[in-house]
């Protein structure tokens, strides 16, 4: 599910009343049953497409309230939070909508597909069972939009990531290595010797007699040149003479697995010219056969043949479980322009579900994403960073449904309303199976297929406003290389909350400049080395109390802000970095000494209860990187294994140096973006200076309004 909360029910109610003018046939829903046919048609559509819009629905976003996105997220922490979300939650719907410009019709043609996906454990892979997390609010949200959970779980398309496929193939290879089958036999033999008792011995004798009888008959017949006698087949049909790979053989039916093991033992012990094989027969159930062989070399050949067949079968079944990943592989190999709306989390999900485990750092992640998907455009950034589009959006919110209704009213509201069509609008024709319509509108919002369709329409319209003329755009040219779009390609919001943007092709981070004036809560650049995280304090203490408490020690201007991570933890932002280590030192010594002076110390109020812990921002990052997710931050810190109460900063100078180095780097190295970057840097600087001018009280006030909302 998506974090696009602003919902306009009104809009939907309105649109449903105008459906008389618009065609309403359902979206193409793809499930297990129609996946193969849908994939082959989608393949053509994607190959012919100018761009492909995507959207995902997930089972949740944050695994704990404190993992939500905050202004106080440094880029690496932000990545860790996204990584945690992508690793824990499942994708249950995937919308793919390829858009192609049709020069004859002067319109886009799109084929929105809505895939239900659900990863089943189809292969016997090692290790843990497949699990995913559900956030109850997200499930409730999906239910509100009538998400069909039955379709997803009963009939969703399964998938394997590239990594899982490799692992499974390796497993098959090691199982069917030359020696392994033999070693498997010898291994079994050890166990078999334990199983002997009188009934077993009698049974084994009987089997031995019957097998030698069969073999004798077989050899006699061969010498006489007649057919294999059919009379051997006994009444219970347990022994059935068949031909296996052109050789006479017995198929064993109706034995228990223990009996089969004994027969296997008898064959190996007493019959040199018989071989016991377990092969997977038709309809995938395994079949036990005893085959007649002339010599050891023939046996080896036969074994190899059977083994190769089994290996191929196993590999086939792995290939068959790739499932939905074929769509992702297709998007990646075609190098099409991918369009999403606020899609950093979506991309992380795609990576972890279909490629492999997410890398540990944002840098590695970005460079690998760029390899798999060289061109990505985020419509949310596009709408916020371009002044023409901002004007078009009339400063309204850039949520997907809002953008869709503002930019594409002719689609959103039906084409009848003539006054709206004054502005040049890009026509979009929808094709589902063989039905086409130029004013289709029967999707349900927050259904991945429909959201992908809306995203594509918004993008097409935005391109037209930017002055891209699709009529002159030659079909061979990649839209991503269009000079009017170039500066927007591969930019993603690392965090929408603090407007930090990352460039996937260069790895550079910038913060948003153009839209900043629009934001309600825009804060000065946060210096992370000035931040202390405090948790486990008495629960009645609120941000204000904590601020007051610390200000008593270090003066009224020492604390810039106190921000609640959750009810058990706060960030305290000091005005100077060295106060961090001072504070931690003081807290540590107060914890240690229990004399009256420390009890009467102003900080004692904060330390009451003896569970108050404090550390620098780096510890916060460490805690975020854990795979555990407890609901409360204080519990999380405990679960991560933090047993100390205060983590002193070793040398604050060093970290500061590092931080400033990083900043210089971010400012200087961005040659590709030219003029825009300069503007941006300038904005950054002006922000910085405004920051110093702002009185600390103002900042605190703004934090408090924010905090009130958070709680």
């Amino acid at each position, binding site marked *: 599910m998506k974090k696009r909360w602003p919902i306009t029910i009104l809009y939907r*109610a309105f649109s449903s009343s105008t459906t008389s003018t618009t065609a309403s046939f359902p979206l193409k829903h793809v499930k297990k049953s129609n996946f193969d046919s849908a994939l082959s048609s989608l393949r053509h559509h994607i190959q012919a497409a100018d761009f492909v819009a995507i959207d995902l629905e997930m089972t949740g976003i944050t695994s704990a309230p404190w993992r939500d996105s905050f202004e106080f997220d440094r880029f690496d922490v932000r990545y860790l939070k996204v990584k945690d979300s992508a690793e824990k939650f499942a994708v249950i719907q995937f919308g793919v909508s390829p858009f192609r410009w049709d020069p004859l019709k002067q319109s886009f043609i799109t084929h929105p597909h809505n895939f239900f996906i659900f990863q089943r454990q189809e292969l016997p892979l090692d290790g843990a069972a497949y*699990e995913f997390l559900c956030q109850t609010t997200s499930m409730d949200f999906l239910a509100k939009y009538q998400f069909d959970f039955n379709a997803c779980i*009963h009939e969703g398309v399964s998938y394997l990531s590239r990594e899982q496929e490799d692992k499974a193939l390796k497993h098959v290879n090691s199982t069917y290595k030359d020696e392994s089958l033999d070693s498997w036999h010898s291994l079994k033999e050890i166990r078999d010797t334990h199983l002997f008792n009188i009934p077993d011995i009698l049974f084994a004798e009987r089997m031995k007699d019957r097998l030698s009888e069969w073999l004798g008959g077989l050899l006699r017949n061969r010498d006489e040149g007649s057919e294999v006698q059919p009379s051997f087949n006994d009444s219970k049909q347990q022994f059935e003479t068949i031909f296996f790979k052109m050789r006479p053989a017995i198929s064993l039916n109706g034995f228990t697995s223990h009996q089969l093991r004994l027969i296997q033992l008898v064959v190996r012990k007493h019959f040199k010219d018989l071989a016991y094989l377990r092969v997977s027969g038709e309809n995938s159930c395994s079949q036990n056969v005893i085959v007649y062989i002339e010599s050891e070399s023939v046996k080896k050949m036969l074994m190899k043949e059977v083994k190769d067949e089994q290996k191929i079968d196993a590999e086939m079944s792995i290939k068959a479980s790739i499932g939905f990943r074929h769509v992702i592989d297709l998007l990646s190999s075609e190098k099409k322009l991918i369009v999403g709306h606020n899609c950093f989390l979506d991309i992380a999900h795609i990576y972890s579900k279909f490629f492999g485990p997410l890398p540990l750092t944002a840098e590695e992640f970005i460079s690998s994403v760029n390899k798999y998907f060289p061109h990505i455009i985020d419509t949310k950034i596009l709408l916020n960073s371009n002044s023409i589009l901002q004007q078009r959006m009339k400063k309204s919110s850039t949520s997907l449904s809002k953008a869709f209704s503002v930019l594409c009213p002719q689609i959103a509201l039906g084409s009848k309303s003539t006054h709206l069509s004054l502005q040049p609008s890009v026509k979009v024709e929808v094709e589902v199976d063989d039905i086409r319509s130029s004013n289709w509108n029967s999707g349900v919002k927050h259904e991945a297929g429909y959201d992908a369709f809306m995203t594509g329409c918004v993008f097409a319209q935005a391109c037209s406003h930017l002055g891209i003329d699709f009529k002159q755009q030659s079909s061979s040219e990649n839209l991503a290389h269009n000079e009017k779009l170039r500066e927007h390609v591969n930019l993603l919001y690392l965090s929408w909350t603090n407007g930090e943007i990352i460039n996937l092709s260069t790895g550079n981070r910038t913060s948003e400049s153009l839209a900043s004036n629009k934001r309600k809560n825009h804060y000065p650049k946060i210096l992370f080395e000035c931040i202390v995280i405090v948790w486990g304090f008495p629960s009645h203490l609120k941000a204000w109390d904590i601020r007051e408490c610390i200000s008593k020690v270090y003066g009224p201007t020492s604390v810039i802000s106190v921000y609640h991570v959750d009810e058990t933890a706060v960030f305290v932002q000091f005005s100077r970095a060295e106060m961090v280590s001072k504070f931690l030192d003081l807290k540590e010594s107060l914890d240690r000494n229990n004399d009256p002076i420390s009890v009467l110390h102003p900080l004692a109020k904060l330390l009451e209860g003896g569970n108050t812990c404090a550390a620098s921002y780096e510890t916060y990052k460490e805690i975020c990187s854990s795979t555990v997710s407890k609901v409360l931050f204080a519990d999380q810190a405990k679960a991560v294994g933090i047993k100390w109460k205060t983590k002193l900063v070793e040398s604050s100078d060093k970290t500061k140096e590092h931080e400033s180095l990083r900043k210089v780097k971010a400012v200087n190295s961005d040659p590709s973006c030219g003029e825009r970057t300069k503007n941006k840097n300038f904005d950054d600087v002006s922000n910085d200076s405004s920051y110093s001018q702002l009185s600390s009280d103002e900042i605190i006030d703004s934090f408090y309004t924010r905090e009130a909302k958070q709680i």
Partner: protein
Amino acid sequence: MVPKFKPSPLRIRSFCTKTVQQNPHHWPIKQITKTNFNESLSEIKNHISSSDFIAVSLQNTGSFSSPWHRVSTFDTPETAYLKAKFAAERFQILQFAICPFKLQASKVIAYPYNFHLFPRDELKMGMPSYSFTCQTSYLTAMAKEGFDFNTCIYDGISYLSEAQESTVKVRMGNPMAVDHATKSSSSPALSVADTVFIERVRSRVKHWKNACTDSDIKTEAALVTSLRKIVLGGEQFGSRPSMTIDVCSERQVQLVLKMLEDFSDVLVPLIIPAKGGGTQAVRAVLTSSDEDKDLLKRELQTFEFEQNKRVRGFREVIDLISASQKPLVAHNSLNDFTFIHSKFLAPLPPNMNEFICSLRLAFPQVIDVNYLLKDIGPVKKMTNISATIAYLKNRFFAPIEMEIPNQANENEGKIHGHNVVKICQLFGKLCSILKITPDAIESSDDFLASAINRYANIFYSLPGSSQEPTNEEIRGWTNDKRKVSCEDVVFLWGFRERISAGILKNMLQGSHEVFAEAFNVRMVDRSCAIVVFGKPGLSNTFKNVMNSKAVSGPLREMVSDGLKAAGYETYQRVCSSGLWESALADALDKTLASHNCLSEAAYETKQSEIYLSNELINLAEL
């Protein structure tokens, strides 16, 4: 205003898949969702109070994520509890089937209900649960049985645990009537500031009251009335005028309450709690007469009652069961009751004893049919109820007639919740075989109590044994009747994966003289095995050898290849510290590492642990 829209265009999505019922039984089980929950409650209450026993059965979203997370024969009650706790905290109950039943001769009269649950965060406070884990294989298996996930998520009944309800009450900020406990009797010494505050508030209240009671207002135009309201700070509380007095401290609350006593003939003070506890404001509500005052108090009570009921949701049923004090019958009681405790009572305590004590307060008698089963002979633990019933049918003649007088509702035919009826059936059979005969039950309640008491509240027992297990003993193998002391168990890991127990045993046999005596090897998961020594003391010798420089021969070779060993106490520490890695080998390694760092911390130093830390020092020297 948001226009109402017909649900029909939206509903299409939910109709596109209908669950197919594959295995229609004929037991009518009443299916309860949000829509028919309230109307069914009184009926359920009657059935519970007239029943002898109540069977329960849960459908969860998962059980164990890795092979070694499963409760196994090598677990002590303590580690078994910790494993069950881990599962109960992560997974969710989607269906809760209860079946109050009566035993009469060879007849079971049962009233099965199947509740569809979903933890909806109705108060937007991250309750009853912020998130939960689903295991794909569980969901797939449920789907195969025709489980309807849409019904469950759209119409599931939500709930809050007892512990959550009490925190919610504070945080909801509902106005509370002032009881006499809140009023402090001692009149506080007044400072100047206090006096100023009181007088200011008093004059405001007086003005407001006079304005409200003034009969002239009635003739005023609506505009004037609303203006007056703004000026005077008055507002409506229900149909009555009220006024909110903001306070900054608990002391001011007392002052205001004291001051309002002067107006007690017509004003009723209410306390508006702040979100994080404490008081946000005092609200004075104007009543017209003494009768009206009583009416207001009653209204407040019913309001609170209704709201609590809405918040509790399904827990209403749990409360009914708890209040009835009837014996409960379950099939896998440790698993089910850790779930029930964590979802409906309170967070699970850190150890088994506390859990049993806490659970006993709510449910005095819990009977596990698996435990009854042990009394009739050496039966392997059966995980499947149907298989157990079939097994009993073959061995004993104990026909049980099932009578289910429930009216079938429209959901009839859905197969959900059949396990609970099977548990009743199985319990009936077992009682008849074990001669806890229905006649006896009817004749004397005392007899029943003592007969049943023998079987009650045993949550974890070793298969084939009718004694309650201790924390020092485990059973290495399912079909092995010998008890094994934890002392004789060593965990081994660090060998190559996909090795079989047979090969590992072969390898060990020649490696050292301790393996000359009888010993057994069993794989716990792919990464780790347990070795059980037949002769006491050998495990210590082996652990010593593993960590001394004297290790030689084939064993040295194996140690150099990464083989590691640890005693049972390390495994216990893995479970209690919550290092639920997917491979046991990783968990053991991590535990050893963290224990190494702060060997003297947190844990009480027992003999075995001192010994262990010595080992680790040796390891570091090597």
